[in-house]
Structures are given as structure tokens and as C-alpha cells.
């Protein structure tokens, strides 16, 4: 591999530092309504989130739809501009970068989305799709592009490369398509890969292959993943740490095995209990929490989970917003009364 590409400046063990990140999307209303009410409502998709991603780890972000996990991912790699808060990538505050510097940095942060068919241009051959990032980031090394494309195709299991390279997305299977998307993300030898539900579209029998491939590639290329998923069972097989999001906030974050064996937030507990287990002898017996995830335009006051919480103490929980507290080593929880689960 080209040395110039794999060279990476390092600071300390943290690749990404996210601090108090917020993203509020204005709600589109009619002109008349805006003139009449002189007020714009916002969807608080992400509303004050802080976490670190350590080099070489897989951090999972899990939650239900509308919890803000995808928006958080996009903010981390600057596909969205934050409303407030900061993201540092390898010690560099992304906000301070000009567009040219940001473009250069993008080589080091790549993304894999859920739907490979939607992520691939139907008019580009597999080779063109995988080579496109090279044209953008390494235009001066055009003569070695083909070699680099072949190499990454072999690594992701699109072998022999000459069989696939001139095919188009519709001519290959769903699992192969996702391999193309993975190859395209890795061809520039990034440090961070945002993987947003990367295997959710794949067939059950193909998912394990893709998960295993992602783990192998991570080890081989010293990658760090931000793995976004709604599926806590899948997260178990790839994530080192996990953050559970609810209505734009992190409810709990820490080592995955620690959290799965001792979930401390009542929401995490409910979420884990709700996941169906592939074993008819272990059917769920406990009832589910009342209600559904409220809208993020008018989130509940205090703790956002309080209207659904089985251990709520209204006088406190509805008024004071809980901060993330480290209740066990490396295990942070945003709940006033989580001590009872220790």
C-alpha cells in the first residue's frame, strides 16, 4: 500500500471528541403562519450530546427511530453543520476548518449507508464507483488507481476483481453491492468509518458475512467505526462500546458487555427487554413501558423519558434534567435514580 496514504498523524487515544453537540432543524411552515405567529419551531434532533470515540474501537449508537442517532453520526463527520457544540477529529476542531481543509480531511472519514442500491450510481461501473474517491483525493496518482482498486476489491471479497470491475450495481447481488460500498469507503484508507445501519438491508444469511468482513477490515486497516443501529442484538457482535440515545440525548454509554449485563437506565432496560430473542424457551414475560417516543419538537421537561419511566419520581424527574454520571467504571448513565439498579 502507498505509504503516503496510510500515514496518519496521531495525538492521543481519542480519535473523536464530541462536546455538547446540538442540531435543531427548523420546521417548514407557510409564510402566512410565520408572519402571524412570528415563531419558528424546531425539531431538536440532537440536543446536547457528548462522547469520545477511541482509536481502534467500534462505538455503537443505538436507539429507536427519531432518537437522533443518524443525525449525530452525520454531525460527527460534518455532513451536517451543528447548531451548537463541537466535534474534534484527531485533535482538530472541525469548526475551524475552511472548506478546502475540510475536503482534505474527508479522506480520513468515510461513510457506509444502509441501502447500497441507493448509495451507488446506477450508471457507474463497480470500478468507477470504487475509484471515484481516489480521483477526488489522489488525482496526482492516477496511474496507481487501478492497482489500489484491485487490492481493496480483493480485501472485501469481490474476487477476482476483473470479474466484477466492469459490472454495474444492478448486475450483482445485494451482498456484493454492500461490499462495493465498503470498498469505496475504505479505498482512501480512512481512520474513521461512519457505518449507518450497514447490514440492515441484507438478508439474514448474508448479514453474518458482512459483519465479519467489517471486523476483519477494521483490524487489518486499524479502523475506528461509529456504528449506528436500531438493532441491539446485532450491535453485540461488533461494538466495543455503545451509547443508547433517546430523543436527542444519550441516556447511557459505556462498554457494551458491561451495559448489556447491567443496564442502569430504565429506558435501556425496556429497550433490551423488547428485543425478541431467537429462542422460544426465553420468551419475554415482562410488560412493556407505556406510551411511545414523544415528538422531538416539544420534548418532555426534565428527564425526557420521565412520562414513560417505571421508576419516575415526578417532582424531581419532570423538573431537573439528569446529567451523565459514571456509576460504574466506564459506564455513564443519565438517570437521577439509577443507583437502585447497581
Amino acid at each position, binding site marked *: 500500500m502507498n505509504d503516503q496514504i496510510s500515514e496518519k498523524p496521531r495525538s492521543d487515544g481519542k480519535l473523536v471528541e464530541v462536546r455538547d453537540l446540538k442540531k435543531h432543524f427548523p420546521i417548514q411552515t407557510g409564510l402566512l403562519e410565520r408572519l402571524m405567529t412570528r415563531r419558528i419551531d424546531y425539531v431538536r434532533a440532537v440536543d446536547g450530546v457528548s462522547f469520545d470515540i477511541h482509536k481502534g474501537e467500534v462505538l455503537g449508537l443505538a436507539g*429507536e*427511530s427519531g432518537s437522533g442517532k443518524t443525525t449525530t453520526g452525520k454531525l460527527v463527520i460534518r455532513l451536517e453543520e451543528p447548531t451548537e457544540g463541537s466535534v474534534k477529529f484527531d485533535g482538530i476542531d472541525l469548526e475551524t476548518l475552511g472548506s478546502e481543509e475540510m475536503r482534505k480531511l474527508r479522506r480520513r472519514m468515510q461513510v457506509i449507508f444502509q441501502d447500497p442500491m441507493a448509495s451507488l450510481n446506477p450508471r457507474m461501473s463497480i470500478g468507477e464507483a470504487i475509484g471515484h474517491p481516489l480521483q477526488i483525493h489522489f488525482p496526482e496518482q492516477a496511474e496507481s488507481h487501478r492497482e489500489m482498486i484491485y487490492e481493496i476489491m480483493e480485501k472485501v471479497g469481490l474476487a477476482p476483481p476483473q470479474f466484477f470491475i466492469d459490472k454495474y450495481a444492478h448486475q450483482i*447481488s*445485494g*451482498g*456484493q453491492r454492500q461490499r462495493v460500498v465498503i470498498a469505496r469507503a475504505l479505498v482512501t484508507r480512512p481512520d474513521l468509518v461512519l457505518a449507518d445501519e450497514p447490514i440492515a438491508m441484507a*438478508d*439474514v*444469511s*448474508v*448479514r*453474518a*458475512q458482512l*459483519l*465479519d468482513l467489517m471486523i476483519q477490515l477494521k483490524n487489518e486497516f486499524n479502523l475506528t467505526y461509529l456504528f449506528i443501529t*436500531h*438493532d*441491539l*442484538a*446485532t450491535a*453485540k*457482535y461488533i461494538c466495543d462500546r455503545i451509547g443508547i440515545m433517546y430523543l436527542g440525548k444519550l441516556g447511557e454509554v459505556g462498554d457494551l*458487555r458491561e451495559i*448489556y*449485563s447491567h443496564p442502569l437506565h430504565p429506558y435501556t432496560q*425496556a*429497550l*433490551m*427487554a*423488547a*428485543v*425478541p*430473542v*431467537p*429462542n*422460544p*424457551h*426465553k*420468551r*419475554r414475560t415482562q*410488560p*412493556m*413501558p407505556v406510551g*411511545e*417516543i414523544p415528538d422531538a419538537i416539544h420534548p418532555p421537561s426534565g428527564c425526557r423519558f420521565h412520562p414513560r419511566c417505571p421508576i419516575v419520581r415526578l417532582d424531581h424527574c419532570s423538573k431537573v434534567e439528569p446529567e451523565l454520571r459514571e456509576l460504574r467504571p466506564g459506564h455513564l448513565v443519565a438517570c437521577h435514580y439509577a443507583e437502585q439498579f447497581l
Partner: protein
Amino acid sequence: MMGEDKEVLVEIRDLDVRYQTRLGPVSAVDDVSFDIFQGEILGLVGESGCGKSTMGKALMRLLPPSTEIRGKVIFDGADVLTFNEDQMRDFRGRRISMIFQDPMTSLNPVQRIADHLVETIRVHEPEMKKPVALDRIRRLVERLGIQKERIEDFPHQLSGGMRQRVMISLGLVLNPSLIIADEATTSLDVIVEAKFLDELREILHEFGVSILVITHNIALVAELADRIAVMYAGQIAELGSIYHVFDNPLHPYTKGLLQSVPSIKLDEREVLYKMPGEPPNLTHPPSGCRFHPRCPEVMPICSNHTPSLMYTTSDQMVNCWLYQDHPEKDRPTIEVTP
């Protein structure tokens, strides 16, 4: 406990469904036979393109007119596939109904919930007066945990879980014997899904209906179903009581599939089984057993001869040469079936 007292509700015999496509005929369902019992939840699982949704639609004859359907679907002693359009209209909704995947696209945004339900009743029972229908609707939705006042709302005013309950009430309002739920929970979040499963179980007990749950989610079937049917490439690979199939899967596809389903339990299934290959394209299905190119226990006979779904115990059936005798079973064969 799954005993002889079970009565058969639907008998499906030698069902073949072929679509005509630009790339040639696709046999989405290929020679499938099984029964659905009264009052049971049968989970039909399989990967995308295995024919499970086609199967559900074939039972209700909701397939495009150009589709070739052969075989028998015996319901109350009559073959549904021989019904004319009038008989079919009466049959759908009243005997079998369907709960679809996405309530937001299945409900009319400019119709109140009550109007959806009244319309459904009056199509089948035109003589019923609206107040009588409304009275029946109010009782039904209350049993499903929707306040009866909410039937005056429009779909967008309800939460996702409530909309899903409206879909159930639409499926139940004509008192059918069989409800087909095709990926009915796929668009729901896990907590809402879990509540929906609880509701489905309650319906079954209260109304005594049978439910055919069609899904790609094997964990969901483990959570819910009495029996499971595993489909692969248009055929049923294995069928049996949920406990028997999970405890002792026989078909190599079932074995692999169950080992590749992630489990959230830390003490269970540390490593997922990586099944080689991908499901076949049904325009050109593999010869012999359709699973043979991916099968870890493949034998010479498998590529030339098609096995059939046969009982191994009183309530487990498997479609695999490992459990069936054939004169050429142990001999390598050179003949090629067309």
C-alpha cells in the same frame, strides 16, 4: 401439547405460483403443501425473494392476473382457487384478512378511522345500518385498547402504535378465521413491536382466530409462533412446532439460519454462523434441492433430484435428502434433470 385435537383450517396442496417477467418465468412458490390449524400462530419465515409474501397473497388471491397459480387452497371444504370474483369478494375480509406492513400508506389520510371501519363492514354487509356498525366498531376498538372517541380522528392524529392497532381492527372487524400479517411489525420500533406482539397474542386468545405471520425476523417468530415454516427459494425447507424446530433443526438451511440470527443475550451465541453464498435468483433456480449449492452437508443426489417435504416426527417435516431414502442416494449420479 400440540395434540390431535387440532382442527385444520386451511389445507394448501401442491401450490405453484409463477410470475411472468421480462427475464422469463419465475416460480416464486414451487409445489408447496401444508396446513394451517385453527387458533394457531404459524410463522412463515424466509429471506427476501423466497416467496413468503407471494404465498400470503396467493391465499387471498391478491396476485396480478398474469400470474399462474396451480394447486389447491381448501378453506371450509371449498377450493379458494376455483372461486369466481363475487365469491372471492365475499371471501376476502370475511374469512381471511390481511394486516399490511405500513399503516401510514394503508390508511386513507382524509378518512376518519371510523369511516375506514364502517366502509369495510358495509362492503360485506350492505344492509347494516351505520349506527349498528359504529356500535360494533366501538366495542372492537376498545377491546384493542383504543379509546372509542379516537375513531373520529384522522390517521395522522394517532401514534404509530395506535395506527397499527387500527390496522388490526380493520383485519378483525368482519370476524375472519385467518389473519395474515405480512411483515406487519417491520416498520415499528422494538418497544412498539413488543407491545404489538402482546396484542396479537391476546387477539388470538380472545377471538380464536388463526394468524399466519409472514416475516424475515426469526427472533420474532420465536417470540410469538406456535409453529414455524421455513421457506427457501420458493419451497418449504422445514416445518414444525416452534420448540422442536428451534431445539432440533433438521434441514441444513434451518440449522445455518438459526445459528446466524443474532441474540442480545450475552451468554448465548457468541459467534454467528456465516452461511456461504446468497439466496438464488428464482429465474434460474439451482437443480435438485435448491439449497444444495450452499449446503454444508451436500450429497451427490442433491444436485440432481428434488427431495420432498416429509414427516420425520408427528409434528416436524423436512425437505431434505438426509432424512429420505432413495435408490440412488449413496451413489454418485451423472444424469441431469432439466
